[in-house]
Every structure is written in C-alpha cells, then in structure tokens.
C-alpha cells in the first residue's frame, strides 16, 4: 500500500485551493491523512499523483472528493445528557429574553442533529417559534439532510439515544419505514433553511441565540479552530450560547475571555462580551 506523506497532503491542498477554492490546509494532519488514504483505496488510485490528476482533469470530481474527505458520521441525540441540558436549561433561559429563537447548526452533515433539535423543539411546543439554519460545505450531504432518509440499521442507536434523552414519545413516532430505510417526518424541518457554507472561508451571515458545532472542529488544527471560534463569536447575540463536542474546549482560544462556561460537562458556553 502506498503511504500518504505530509508532502503529498501539501501538494493536494494547494491544487484544491487554487483550482477549486476549498482550503484544507488547516485540517488536522492525522485525520486528513487518513481520509486521503481512504479516498485512494475507495477509488483504487495507485498514488496521490493519480488522485491529483483526476482532480485536475475532472472538475466534477471535486464535489465527490469533498464528500469523501469530510467526515459524515453522526447520530441522533448523540450525548443524550447534552440534549436534556438543552431542553431543561439552555432553551428555557433563552426564552426568558426572546420570543423566537434563532439556531445555527454549523456543519450539519446528514442532518441527524437538525432532526434531533426539531423533535426536541416540537416536544417543547416551540418549534414554530424557532428559526433554524443548517449549513455544511458539502452540497450533496445537505441534499441528504433535506431528504430525511436514513438507513434503518442506524435507528437502533438513535432510538437508544432518544430513550436516554428521555423524550416524550417514542422516536418511531417521527418516521416511517420503507424498504430498509426510514423516512423522517418532513414537517419537522419545513422551516429549516439549509445552505452551503464553508467554515474555513465563509463569513458571518446572521446573528443567533444558539450555535451548535459539535465534533466538527476536531478535524481542524488550532489556527483554523481559532478563526472559526471568532466567526461564531461574531455570529452570536450577546448572551447567546455556543455548543461544541463533549471533548472539545474553548479555554485555550484567543477569544476565550469573551465566553463563560455554562456547563463544562456538555461544553456549553455563553457569549458575555462583544
């Protein structure tokens, strides 16, 4: 097997940046390297050069490449204790100050977290009061999220998470099965706006009460994490909430002093300074 070296990664990121305007140069080396290795195996490229050639010769291939390189493994109600905290404390707190909550799912992937959020909000009876925007850099995965179709085999884990979240009903109330797939109740996301947005290069486009970006920045190096956190700071109303993954932290970053920790266990932060 051909080993992907750091120099190969540099050549790749340069070509993709210059030709297609996707910048992977600040992705974390260890996972990016493995993703490239994976693309080589998946498409049976004999070398990084063969992959480079395909990327240069066939502009359409870059979309597929981006889909494969980015990680799209996610669950509904991952970390059920976080979703409980959101329902029992964070959202009620936001509702003290505003009638309509604006929420940004940054890096929404195939949409499992968007559906989790919509189910939670409907069970709280406030789904109609919420404005949700879900973004990802990958247009194909956004289509998948919008379609709300998931493999049936994923539902066992999702159901277990939902039970641990202590939802009001049973998760199967929100979907129906068809030929080994589940079709989510689309009315859950009828007011969700899905957009293409790249955290690496995208600017702030609105202000939010709550930004969720869980297990997305783990694929970035600290330089990029810093930039993205500034973007989130800019995108939050004062006293708005930012949530990252359970093993991510803000304490080291440049703008850490503009946030306070609301819940360290679930990595919920609140913007306290502009």
């Amino acid at each position, binding site marked *: 097997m051909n080993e992907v070296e*750091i120099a190969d990664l540099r050549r790749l990121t340069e070509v993709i940046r210059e030709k297609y305007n996707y910048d992977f140069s600040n992705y*974390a*080396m*260890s*996972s990016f*390297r*493995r993703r490239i290795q994976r693309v080589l195996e998946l498409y049976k490229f004999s070398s990084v050069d063969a992959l480079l050639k395909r990327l240069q010769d066939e502009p359409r291939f870059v979309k597929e490449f981006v889909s494969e390189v980015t*990680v799209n*493994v*996610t669950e509904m109600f*991952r*970390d*059920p204790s976080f979703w409980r905290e959101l329902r029992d404390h964070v959202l009620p707190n936001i509702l003290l100050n505003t009638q309509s909550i604006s929420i940004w799912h940054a890096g929404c992937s195939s949409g499992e977290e968007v559906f989790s959020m919509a189910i939670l909000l409907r069970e709280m009876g406030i789904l109609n009061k919420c404005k949700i925007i879900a973004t990802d850099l990958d247009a194909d995965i956004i289509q998948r999220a919008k379609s709300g179709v998931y493999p049936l085999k994923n539902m066992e884990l999702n159901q*277990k*998470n939902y039970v*641990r979240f202590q939802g009001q009903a049973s998760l199967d109330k929100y979907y129906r099965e068809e030929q080994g797939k589940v079709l989510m109740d689309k009315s859950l996301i009828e007011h969700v706006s899905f957009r293409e947005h790249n955290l690496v290069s995208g600017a702030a486009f609105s202000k939010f009460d709550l930004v969720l970006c869980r*297990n997305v*920045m*783990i*694929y970035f*190096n*600290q330089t990029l*994490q810093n930039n993205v956190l500034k973007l989130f700071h800019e995108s939050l109303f004062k006293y708005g909430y930012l949530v990252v*993954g*359970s*093993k*991510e*932290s803000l304490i*080291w970053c440049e703008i850490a002093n503009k946030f306070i920790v609301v819940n360290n266990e679930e990595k919920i932060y609140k913007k306290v300074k502009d």
Partner: protein
Amino acid sequence: MSKFNLHNQYKAIVIGGSAGSFQVINKILNGLPSDFDLPVIMCLHRLKHVRHGFVEALNIKSSITIEEPSDKDGIKKGKIYLAPSNYHLCIELGNAFSLSTEEMVNNSRPSIDITLETASYVYKNKLIGILLSGANRDGALGMKRIKDRGGLTIVQDPSECMIDTMPAAAMKVTHIDHVLSAQQILELLLELHKKIKI
C-alpha cells in the same frame, strides 16, 4: 543488568487492550513509579454510550493520574492518557492529540489500530507498542505499522491472556519483538524507566 536491551530514545508508549485486559492494565499502572517519564497512551475498547466511570476505575490503582484528553491537548511527559468513549484518539505532529468521530474501525471507536497507526507515524522508531488480551483483531495492523516504522512491538503472552485473539492476530501479521507476561511487561517498563533516568 539489562534483560531487554532497550535504548533510551523512546518518546512514548501506546497500549491497546480489549476484553480481559482490565486487570493487566491495572497491574501495569499500579507498578509504574509515580515519576515514570514517558507519556503512556492507552486505547482500550469500552462502551460507547458511557462517558464516565472507566477512567475513575483505572485511577484507583494507578500511581499516576490518568486523563482522557480533549481535542488538541498537548502530550506531556510523565502522563497517562486514555482514549475517551466514542472517539478515535489520534496523535498529531507537534506532540498533541486530536480526536475523531470517523467510522468505526474493526467495529470499534476508539479503535486501537487508529491510535497505534497515528502514533507510529509521528514517533516512528521511538515508539513502544503493547497489545494485550482482547477478542477481536483491532490493533494487529497498528502493531505492524509500528514494526514497519522501526518501533518496538510487545504483546501479552497469548497463553496468559483471558482472550488471545488480539495478540495472536498481531503475531500473525508482523514480527513481535517480545511476547511477555503481564509481570514481564511491567519489568520491561521499569527497566526502561531506569535507562531514561540515568
């Protein structure tokens, strides 16, 4: 007296374990001196939905406090780390961890292969890999990577393992430098400790 003929250039130790490895890990952690100088990075198969309890249980017997690293945490000398539940634990250049929620590997997240492979890429021949008792083949390819890049490979003696699938799989795919009992693994680490302190 030098039983294992170790050099003193090693930078890190990675340990993989699964079913039947808990007591072995406890024995090793309990026997390490509190001033043991190398980082020890452990990837042990564990329940995906239980975030708490495991590191606390290991800490009871350990002379050095064990931590579950957060993403991009620095890797420090004299610390012991445990891969958190439902994340792969990777080693970055520049002595830091990174976490990943990628697909399961060998039905596992954390996967031992991923921790071992990324560690060997960063530490090359300055890495010691130890694979303990376990019921699947996770870790075998990672051990091969360590060997291919010049590191030292150690497995727990299959005859001593509660379940020997894991070390046996590693022995099939690569050369293992030492096949040792839990007690001997500890002795090797203590010998290494003395070498480094001199």
